């Protein structure tokens, strides 16, 4: 501490330039660099002393950060005044919190890229092959003799896309119409308040419960209308059931985001439309919805991105298979998250887990890329549909 302060005071310059009375009493611009350097040096010393033989990089950075924040406070309060020092102290704390929040985010992306990208570049066949016919022997060969990685996750990609697509087809109309009811017709009556309450409850449902619910519903439907033999019970596990489970998770998100967007459409536009003798439903579909379309589209895309990563409800409702199944209405399907889960928990060759691990990381990278793409699409849609303001 004292060292830091001393260094700075020794270095404090007296510039020969003509002084501006408005900037009198201010520290030189580079003070923070000096304090930072001092903090890093002192922290390095402390870390080396405490660490005995070894040197901890993480410990060094943490100690340096603490020293810097305290050192800046001390320096500023000595060189300027306490008010400035407190202001700077809080600003530094906010920055520290921001960096802390970024650490998990960056490290997740880093870990996935570092582990997944080499595999994907080396064997891009993973993207268009499934696990059909891949046995433990292949993986043992890969691990022991360096043979190319066998198998792939095309079935996972197909499963994720089909299930998500179906879930979107189910939940967007329901969610959209629900929020239209809430904003345009319900007007805060007891029924709409009840809907809002249950939608909020639904937002908090654990996803596995949604999976069990969808499974139970489809089972009831099938046993009631088709029959309850073992063949019919087998039918319950399919892509559609998983899509229903994901819809349960998606609908509340779509309802809430769309509702917000519809509420910010100015009432003046509705009145302008009514005043032209336009009926209410036409006003809603031709004036209110287009005006809110950018927000609605990005809300829907974000809801899709959110359910793309679900694992548990899909595992319960669609199972997992090694082959590519394009038909969500018949037979089991594998989704990418389920694929990752299976590869990690049940490696194809229990004795040689590394190839399975590599496939899992590559699949994780692809999943993250899909979610990022969806977010990007949401932004593009929001831009494209946004009401044009210019043209003057």
């Amino acid at each position, binding site marked *: 501490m004292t060292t830091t302060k001393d260094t700075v005071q020794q270095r404090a310059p007296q510039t020969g330039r003509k002084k501006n009375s408005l900037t009198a009493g201010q520290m030189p611009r580079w003070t923070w660099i000096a304090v930072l350097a001092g903090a890093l040096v002192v922290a390095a010393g402390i870390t080396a002393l405490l660490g005995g033989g070894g040197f901890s990089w993480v410990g060094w950075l943490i100690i340096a950060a603490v020293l810097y924040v305290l050192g800046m406070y001390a320096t500023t309060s000595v060189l300027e005044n306490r008010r400035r020092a407190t202001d700077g102290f809080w600003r530094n704390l906010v920055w520290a919190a921001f960096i802390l929040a970024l650490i998990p985010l960056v490290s997740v992306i880093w870990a996935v890229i570092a582990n997944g990208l080499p595999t994907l570049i080396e064997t891009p066949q993973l993207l268009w092959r499934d696990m059909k016919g891949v046995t433990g022997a292949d993986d043992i060969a890969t691990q022991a003799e360096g043979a190319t990685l066998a198998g792939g996750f095309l079935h996972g990609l197909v499963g994720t896309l089909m299930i998500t697509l179906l879930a979107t087809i189910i939940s967007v109309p329901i969610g959209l119409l629900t929020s239209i009811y809430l904003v345009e017709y319900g*007007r805060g009556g007891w029924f709409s308040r009840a809907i809002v309450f249950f939608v909020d409850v639904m937002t908090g449902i654990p996803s596995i419960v949604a999976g069990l619910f969808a499974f139970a519903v489809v089972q009831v439907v099938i046993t009631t209308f088709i029959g309850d033999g073992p063949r019919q019970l087998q039918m319950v596990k399919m892509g559609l059931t998983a899509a229903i489970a994901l819809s349960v998770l998606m609908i509340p998100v779509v309802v809430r985001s769309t509702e917000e967007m519809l509420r910010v459409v*100015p009432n*003046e*536009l*509705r*009145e*302008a*439309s*009514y*005043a*032209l*003798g*336009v*009926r209410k439903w*036409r*006003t809603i579909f*031709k*004036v209110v919805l*287009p*005006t809110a*379309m950018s927000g609605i589209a990005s809300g829907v895309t974000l809801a899709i991105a959110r359910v793309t990563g679900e694992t548990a409800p899909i595992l319960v409702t669609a199972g997992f298979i090694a082959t590519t199944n394009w038909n969500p209405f018949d037979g089991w399907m594998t989704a990418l998250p389920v694929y990752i889960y299976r590869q990690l928990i049940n490696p194809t060759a229990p004795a040689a887990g590394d190839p399975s691990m590599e496939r899992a990381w590559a699949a994780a990278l692809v999943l993250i890329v899909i979610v990022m793409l969806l977010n990007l699409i949401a932004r593009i849609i929001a831009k494209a549909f946004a*009401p*044009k*303001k*210019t*043209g*003057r």
Partner: protein
Amino acid sequence: MSKRIDAVDLNVYYGNFLAVEGVNINIEPRSVTAFIGPSGCGKTTFLRTINRMHEVLPGARAEGRLLLDGENIYDPGVDPVTVRTMVGMVFQRPNPFPTMSIRDNILAGYKLNGTRMSKSTADGIVEKSLRGANLWEEVKDRLDKPGSGLSGGQQQRLCIARSIAVEPDVILMDEPCSALDPISTLAIEDLINELKDNYTVVIVTHNMQQAARVADKTAFFNIAGTGKPGKLIEYDETSVIFNNPSNKQTEDYVSGRFG
């Protein structure tokens, strides 16, 4: 093209609150009528009952009779949408549809209702309406640009063009110039003078000079106090209202001695 308006013992409510009480007024076709009065006295509320826009607000309703050429628009069974096709409205703040071009804004009354028309018919309507609103020369080269890109005064004239495009019988204007600068205001006032050749125009204004400039007849509304209903105090030729009003309240208001 133009209809007379007669209100008979009209009471307007917001829920259980009586906002305007006992209005009796006869508005001639092809004339400009101005409603003046202090804030909260029910001018706008009464104006919005003339095309049944009032009841768009939850709980709002009107009792009594309001006759358009002798036909009561508050008869049970009358569809408010039919009334609104006959009575157009221009609002306080210009509100062109932000997702539509200038051309589409003019055609909104047809397009939103799903009416199909040939391109030449549509072009004719666009030009006629924009000429009617004195906006054609300013925007004819950029009909495909968004309406929200125009200046405030142009937007307001665009909204007027949009309401005359559907050829109503009556045009209601709710403080159409309160968000505009004096030059745009002048343009709108000139337009109002031309509109009365074809339409019945009713205008709410806070600007008494404006009422004096544009209106043939003027109606003064007042309110006895907070929570009391607004009432029509006096309705007469504009010159009488401003120079020789018969009611003390009107005289106080127009001479600025109010309150």
